C-alpha cells in the first residue's frame, strides 16, 4: 500500500562526518518531493589564499585544508607545481611519496571503518556503544590507524598537517633504523588487515545495486595513488590536464560546496570506484582476500565501499612494506626547483577519492591562480542521487527515525569530508 502521509525529515547536524552538513527530505504522496544534502559550513577560500604566495609555501598551506587527508592535498599540489617547473624528483622521492600516501590511506580508512561507519552497519549509535560488544575489532582499528599516523609522521614530522613535504621531494629523509622499526610493525599488522577485509564483508550485507559511473585515476602498472590518467567505467580515458573539458562544477543554493558533474551527470569517486576500475592492480594477497568474501567487483552496491576501504588498507600495508624493504638513505631527499611561468596539473587519490589541482605561476613561481576540486564536491551530487534511490528502496513508509538513521548511514558510507569541500565564494563587485 502506498503511504500518502506527508513527512518532513530534518537532520540539522550530521554526526560522524567531517564538517558541518545537514539533510532535508520532504515526502509527499509516497514519493520524495525534495531532498537536499545541505552543506552550510562557511566557505574556506583556500584557493584565494594561495594567490600571490610563493610555490614553496603551497605544500604547507594546502595541508591545512584537511586534518584527515593533508597528504593528499600536499601530493596533488607538488605534482602540479613540478609539472609547471619541469621537475623530475627521481625514483626515491616517487617511492617515498607513495609510502607516505599509504600511511594516509591506512589512517583515514581505519578511522572511517571502525569509528564512523561500522556502528551504522551493526546498529549502534556510536563506536563507544559498539566497543562494548566488539572490543577486539575496535582495538584493531585503533592500532591500524596509529600505524598509518606513524607512517605519515616518518616523513612529515607530525601526522596532522605534516610539514615534511616540499616541491621537489622531502625536507628530510628518515634514518634507516626508524624505517626498519616501522617495517617490523607493518609486517606484524598484515594478518589484522587481512582479517579486516573479511570482517567488513560480513557487515556490508544490505544495500542495493544502483547504476552510477565510477571515476578514478589509473596507472599502467600500479594501483593508483600519485599518478595516472583519469578513467571511468563508461569509456572516459583522459590526461589529467583535460579534466576541465569533461567535468564541470556548479553552484547550488543549498550548499557552500560546489557540485561536480561528468558530462552533466553525477559520478562516484573514492575507494569503491578505485577498486571497480583497478582491482587487477591490487597485490595478489589483496585480490585473494577480496575473492574470499564472495563479493563480486566491480560492484554497484555502494555499501561495498567499506570492503573496498579495507582492501585498500591491506594493499597500503603491503605496498609500504614493498617500498620500505628496499629503503636506502638518499644523498639529498629532494630535487632543486627552478621556478618558471606556466600552468600545471596534479591529480592524486585522496582516501575519499580523486583530488584535482590546477595552478598558474609567474616567472618567480608565485601562484597566480589556484583551483582545487576535492572528492566530496565530486561525490555530492552522487550522494543526493543515492539517497533518493536508497530511501525509496528502503521504504518511505518506515518511521521517521528509521528513515533518518538510514539516510545518515547512506551519507556516512561515502565518508564525506565537508570541511574539504567548502571552498568557493561567489563574489559580485559593482563599480558605480
Amino acid at each position, binding site marked *: 500500500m502506498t503511504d500518502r502521509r506527508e513527512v518532513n525529515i530534518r537532520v540539522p547536524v550530521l*554526526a*560522524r*562526518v*567531517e564538517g558541518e552538513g545537514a539533510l532535508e527530505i520532504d515526502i509527499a504522496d509516497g514519493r520524495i518531493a525534495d531532498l537536499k544534502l545541505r552543506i552550510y559550513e562557511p566557505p574556506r577560500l583556500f584557493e584565494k589564499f594561495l594567490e600571490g604566495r610563493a610555490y614553496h609555501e603551497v605544500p604547507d598551506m594546502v595541508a*591545512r585544508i584537511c*586534518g*584527515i587527508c593533508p597528504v593528499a592535498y600536499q601530493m596533488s599540489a607538488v605534482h602540479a607545481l613540478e609539472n609547471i617547473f619541469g621537475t623530475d624528483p627521481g625514483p626515491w622521492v616517487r617511492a617515498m611519496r607513495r609510502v607516505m600516501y599509504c600511511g594516509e590511506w591506512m589512517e583515514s580508512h581505519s*578511522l572511517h571503518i571502525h*569509528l*564512523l561507519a561500522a556502528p551504522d552497519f551493526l546498529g549502534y549509535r*556510536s*563506536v*563507544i556503544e559498539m*566497543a*562494548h560488544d566488539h*572490543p577486539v575489532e*575496535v*582495538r584493531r582499528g*585503533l*592500532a591500524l*590507524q*596509529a600505524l598509518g*599516523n606513524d607512517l605519515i609522521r616518518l616523513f612529515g614530522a*607530525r*601526522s*596532522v*598537517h605534516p610539514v615534511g613535504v616540499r616541491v621537489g621531494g622531502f625536507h628530510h629523509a628518515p634514518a634507516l633504523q626508524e624505517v626498519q622499526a616501522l617495517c617490523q610493525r607493518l609486517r606484524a599488522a598484515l594478518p589484522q588487515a587481512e582479517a579486516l577485509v573479511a570482517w567488513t564483508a560480513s557487515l556490508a550485507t544490505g544495500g542495493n545495486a544502483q547504476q552510477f559511473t565510477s571515476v578514478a585515476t589509473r596507472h599502467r602498472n600500479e594501483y593508483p595513488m600519485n599518478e595516472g590518467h583519469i578513467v571511468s567505467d563508461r569509456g572516459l580515458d583522459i590526461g589529467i590536464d583535460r579534466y576541465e573539458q569533461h567535468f564541470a562544477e556548479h553552484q547550488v543554493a543549498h550548499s557552500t560546496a560546489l557540485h561536480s558533474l561528468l558530462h552533466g551527470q553525477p559520478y562516484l569517486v573514492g575507494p569503491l570506484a578505485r577498486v571497480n576500475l583497478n582491482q587487477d592492480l591490487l597485490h595478489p594477497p589483496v585480490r585473494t582476500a577480496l575473492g574470499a568474501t564472495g563479493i563480486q567487483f566491480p560492484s554497484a552496491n555502494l555499501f561495498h565501499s567499506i570492503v573496498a576501504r579495507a582492501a585498500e588498507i591491506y594493499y597500503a600495508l603491503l605496498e609500504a612494506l614493498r617500498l620500505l624493504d628496499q629503503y636506502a638513505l638518499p644523498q639529498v631527499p629532494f630535487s632543486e626547483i627552478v621556478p618558471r611561468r606556466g600552468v600545471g596539473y596534479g591529480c592524486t587519490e585522496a582516501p575519499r577519492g580523486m583530488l584535482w589541482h590546477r595552478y598558474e605561476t609567474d616567472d618567480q613561481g608565485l601562484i597566480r591562480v589556484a583551483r582545487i576540486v576535492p572528492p566530496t564536491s565530486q561525490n555530492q551530487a552522487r550522494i543526493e542521487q543515492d539517497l533518493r534511490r536508497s530511501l525509496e528502496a528502503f521504504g518511505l513508509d518506515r518511521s521517521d527515525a528509521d528513515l533518518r538513521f538510514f539516510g545518515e548511514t547512506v551519507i556516512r558510507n561515502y565518508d564525506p569530508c565537508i570541511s574539504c569541500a567548502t571552498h568557493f565564494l561567489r563574489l559580485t563587485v559593482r563599480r558605480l
Partner: protein
Amino acid sequence: MTQARIIGVGSPFGDDQIGWDAVEALLADGLIERYPPRSVEACCCGNPVELLMLSKDAQAVFIIDAMKSGAEVGTVRRFGPNQLESNQTFISTHGVSVAEAVALGQTLNLLPATLVLYGIEIHPAVLERQKTVRAAIPVLLRAIAIDLESFILV
C-alpha cells in the same frame, strides 16, 4: 613504561592549537628536565583518537586541549575522566572528541591508572589568536607541575 606523559591535543586552526602551544611552553620551561630521564614525556597529537594509543605505556597521562564550556575565554579547568560527559565540548575534528575518545578508552580498558584533562577555554568562532587564551599557559603549567609533584617519585 614511562611514569607520566603529557599530551597536547589540537589543530593549526586559531586557538585550537593551544594544546600544542602549552606543550611547547612546557618543554621550553624545562619542567620535564626536573625529573629522571624518560620518567616524564610530552608530545602532541591532532586526532583525539590517537590519545588512546599514546596513553598505552604510561602510568599517568595529562591531556591538554582547547575547551568550550561557557566559561570566560582563557579559563583553565581540570577534569578527571569520570567528570566528562561524552558530549562535552572539547574542540575536535571528524566527529570524535576528546571526551568520546576517553569514553572509548574506558570501554576498551586502554586508559592509564591516572588520567587528568586540562581544558583551556577558547572562542572557537574566532580565527585570530586571542591573547587571553595564550595568557592561560603559565597558570596551566603551574597546575601541571603540582600534579607531577604528586605523581612522580623523584
